[in-house]
C-alpha cells in the first residue's frame, strides 16, 4: 500500500511542466496528417520557431476530425490541455467556451484588427460568445468542389465535363475505359459531407439549404428540391461502385492516377494535387458547386487556446495567435494547404486556376456558412450515421433516406 501512495505523490510533483526561461514549448494538436496537410503545418512550425523564442511541439492525430476531436476534448477536460488545438469553424467548441476552459483572445484581435481583416466576418462570429473572441481562424475551406481526373478523361477520350449533368453523361464512357466514375472514401464524414454541403447546395439550391440547416425546417427536406438532391446522391452512390478505400487522400490519389474519374471533396484536396506536382486545368479540373449554383461555404479551421495558469505560456499562446494571422504566414500556409486565406487584404502569389475561381466567388460574396456553423455536433453525428448507412446499404432508396433525414432535422438543435 505504501508503495502505491509513494508512486502517486512523487509523480504528481514532477508533472509541473519544466518551463524554459522565456522560450515556451507549445504543443499544438491537429489532424492534418496527409502529405499536403503535413507540409502546410510545417510552414506554421517554421514560422513559430524562427520568429519567436517558442518552439512548436507537433501533436498530430491520424484518422480525421472525428477521431482527433475526442482526443483533444478529453485532454482539455482531463486537466492536461495542449497549448493550442485545431477545430473547424462553428459550434464545436461552444460548450468548452461556456465552461470557461478557453483563452479569451479579444485583446489580440483588437490589437491586430481582426474584425476588419477577416473576410467573411461570419468566421469570427461563430466563435464570439457575448462579445469575446475565443478563436483564431486561419483558413477558409469549402466543401463545395468536385475534382476531375485529366488522365481518366484522356483514357475515355472525352473532354472534362463542366458540370454535374455532364459528368453523369460521361460516366458510361468512363466505365468502358475501366475507370470508376466517382471515388468516395470509406469514412462517414466524407460520404455525409458530400451530400450535406456540396450536393444539397448545388442541386436543391442555397435557399432550400439555409431553410433546412439554419431554420431546421423539416418540410423543406421533404420538398421537391431536396428530392432531386437525394436522387442525385443515389446516382452518385451507383457511380462510386468499383473503388474501395478508407481515407479521402486515397480517393484523391485515385483521381490523380486516373483510376477514378472524379471526387467530390473540399478544396483541401488541392494540396494533394500540389504535392503530386499536378497543374490545375490540365492534369485535373475543378468545379465549384458541381458547376451548377457556384456557392462556397466558408468552412475551414481555426485554432483555439485552452486556458493555462502559467502566464508565460499564455503570452506565448497569444503570440502564436497573432503570428497565425500575420500576412506572410497566411500566404505560406494557405498556398501549400490549398485553402483560401482569411485575410481579405492579402493575395496569394502563386494562384492557380482553381484557387482563382474560389477567390472570385469569395469576392462576389457568393458564400454560405459551413454546416458546422449552423448545426450542433450531435446533429452532424446523426446525419453522418444516416448518410453512411444509406451509402453502404444499396437496398435503401432515396425516399427512405429523405424521410429519415427530415426526422433528424426535425429535432436538431
Amino acid at each position, binding site marked *: 500500500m505504501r508503495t502505491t501512495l509513494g508512486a502517486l505523490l512523487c509523480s504528481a510533483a514532477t508533472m509541473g511542466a519544466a518551463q524554459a526561461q522565456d522560450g515556451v514549448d507549445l504543443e499544438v494538436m491537429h489532424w492534418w496528417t496527409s502529405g499536403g496537410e503535413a507540409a502546410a503545418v510545417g510552414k506554421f512550425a517554421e514560422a513559430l520557431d524562427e520568429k519567436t523564442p517558442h518552439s512548436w511541439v507537433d501533436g498530430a492525430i491520424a484518422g480525421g476530425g472525428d477521431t482527433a476531436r*475526442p482526443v483533444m476534448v478529453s485532454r482539455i477536460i482531463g486537466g492536461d490541455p495542449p497549448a493550442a488545438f485545431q477545430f473547424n469553424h462553428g459550434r464545436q467548441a461552444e460548450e468548452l467556451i461556456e465552461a470557461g476552459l478557453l483563452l479569451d483572445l479579444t485583446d489580440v484581435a483588437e490589437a491586430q484588427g481582426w474584425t476588419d481583416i477577416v473576410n467573411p466576418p461570419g468566421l469570427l462570429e461563430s466563435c464570439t460568445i457575448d462579445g469575446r473572441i475565443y478563436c483564431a481562424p486561419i483558413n477558409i475551406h469549402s466543401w463545395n468542389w468536385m475534382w476531375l481526373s485529366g488522365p481518366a478523361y484522356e483514357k475515355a477520350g472525352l473532354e472534362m465535363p463542366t458540370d454535374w449533368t455532364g459528368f453523369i453523361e460521361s460516366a458510361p464512357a468512363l466505365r468502358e475505359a475501366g475507370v470508376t466514375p466517382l471515388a468516395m472514401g470509406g469514412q462517414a464524414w466524407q460520404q455525409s459531407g458530400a451530400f450535406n454541403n456540396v450536393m444539397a447546395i448545388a442541386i436543391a439550391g442555397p435557399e432550400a439549404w439555409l431553410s433546412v440547416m439554419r431554420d431546421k425546417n423539416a418540410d423543406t427536406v421533404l420538398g421537391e428540391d431536396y428530392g432531386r438532391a437525394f436522387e442525385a446522391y443515389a446516382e452518385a452512390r451507383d457511380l462510386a461502385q468499383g473503388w474501395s478505400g478508407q481515407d479521402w487522400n486515397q480517393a484523391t490519389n485515385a483521381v490523380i492516377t486516373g483510376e477514378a474519374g472524379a471526387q467530390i471533396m473540399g478544396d483541401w484536396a488541392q494540396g494533394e494535387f500540389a504535392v503530386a506536382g499536378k497543374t490545375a486545368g490540365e492534369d485535373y479540373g475543378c468545379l465549384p458547386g458541381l458547376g451548377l449554383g457556384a456557392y462556397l461555404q466558408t468552412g475551414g479551421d481555426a485554432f483555439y487556446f485552452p486556458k493555462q495558469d502559467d502566464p508565460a505560456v499564455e503570452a506565448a499562446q497569444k503570440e502564436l495567435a497573432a503570428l497565425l494571422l500575420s500576412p506572410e504566414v497566411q500566404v505560406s500556409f494557405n498556398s501549400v494547404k490549398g485553402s483560401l486565406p482569411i485575410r481579405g487584404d492579402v493575395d496569394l502569389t502563386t494562384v492557380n486556376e482553381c484557387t482563382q475561381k474560389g477567390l472570385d466567388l469569395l469576392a462576389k460574396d457568393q458564400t454560405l456558412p459551413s454546416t458546422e456553423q449552423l448545426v450542433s455536433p450531435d446533429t452532424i453525428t446523426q446525419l453522418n450515421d444516416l448518410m453512411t448507412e444509406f451509402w453502404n446499404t444499396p437496398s435503401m432508396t432515396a425516399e427512405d433516406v429523405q424521410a429519415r433525414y427530415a426526422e433528424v432535422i426535425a429535432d436538431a438543435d
Partner: protein
Amino acid sequence: MAIAEDADRAPGDRPRGATRRPVRLFQNLQAKVAMVPMIFVALVVFLGGTIWTVVHSFTGSGLLPRLNWVGLDQYERLWSSRKWLVSIENLAIYGIFSIVGTLVIGFVLAALLDRKIRFEDTFRTIFLYPFALSFIVTGLIWQWLLNPDLGIQNVVRGAGWEGFAFDPLNNPDLVMYGLLIAGLWQGTGLIMCIMLAGLRGIDEDIWKAARVDGIGVVKTYVLIIIPMMRPVFVTALVLITSGIVKLYDLVVAMTSGGPGISSEVPAKYVMQATFGGQNLGQGFAASTMMLVMVVIILIPWAYLEFGGRRRG
C-alpha cells in the same frame, strides 16, 4: 477459515484491561490498512463509477457532465437510433456464432488432442499463440487477409479461379462474419485449453467402462463426457460472453464500424457518443444498457454457480 477477527488480540497490541473488549475496528489494524487500495477500488471506482454513470444517463450532459435531468430522453433517443439497433443486432449475430463456434471448435480440437496423439504440444502451441496477440494486431492481420485486392481473394483469383469472391469486409451483410473469422481465430485457443484441462480431469475408468459397454467414441463424448463437463462448459460460456460484450478493439482495427454502420458494436457506440459526438448523456445511457446486458447474462450463471452450491 483462517484467523477470524475475534481471535486473540493483534500482536503488538498492549494488553488491554480485562474489563473492556478491544474495539472491533482496531483489530488487525495493519490488515485493514493494507486493504485500503482494494476497498478504494471496489467502492469508489467500481461501485461509485457505475452508479455515477447510471445516474448521469438520466441527464442531458453534452460535452461536459451536467446534472440537468431529462428523464428517459436519452434512452428513447438510444432505442430509436438506427445505429444502436444495428449494433445490438450485430452483437447478437457475433455473440451467437462466436459462442457456438468457439465451444464446438474448442471442444473438437481438445478432444482430438486428448486422443494421445504425437506432436500434441506443437499443435497446442499453434492453436494458442493467437491468444497472446492483441485484438488490434489480430484485426489488422485479418483486415489485410480479407482485403479483396491483396488477400485471399486476390491469391485464389491469381491461381486461376477467376470468379472467386471473398470480400466480407466490404459487404454490409457479411462484415460481421468477417469479424467472426478473426474473433474465432483469436479466442478458440483458450477455450480449447480449458476443455483439454477438463477432459484430462475425467477419470480414465469412465472411458474403459464405456468401451466395455460397447459405446462408440463419438457417442461416448456426446452422451457421457460432455454432460460430465458441464461446469467447464459453463465457465467457458461466461468467458466467451464477457469477451463478446467488450468487443471493441477488433472492430476498430478491422472495419472501424464500416462499411457504413454495418459493423457497429455497442462498445463502439459508447465510445463514439461519449468522446466523439460530444454527447455524454447518450454515451452513459448506452454503457448502462451494456451493463444491463452483462447482468442479464450473469445472473443465471451466478445463480447456477453459487445458488447450486448452497442448494447442492
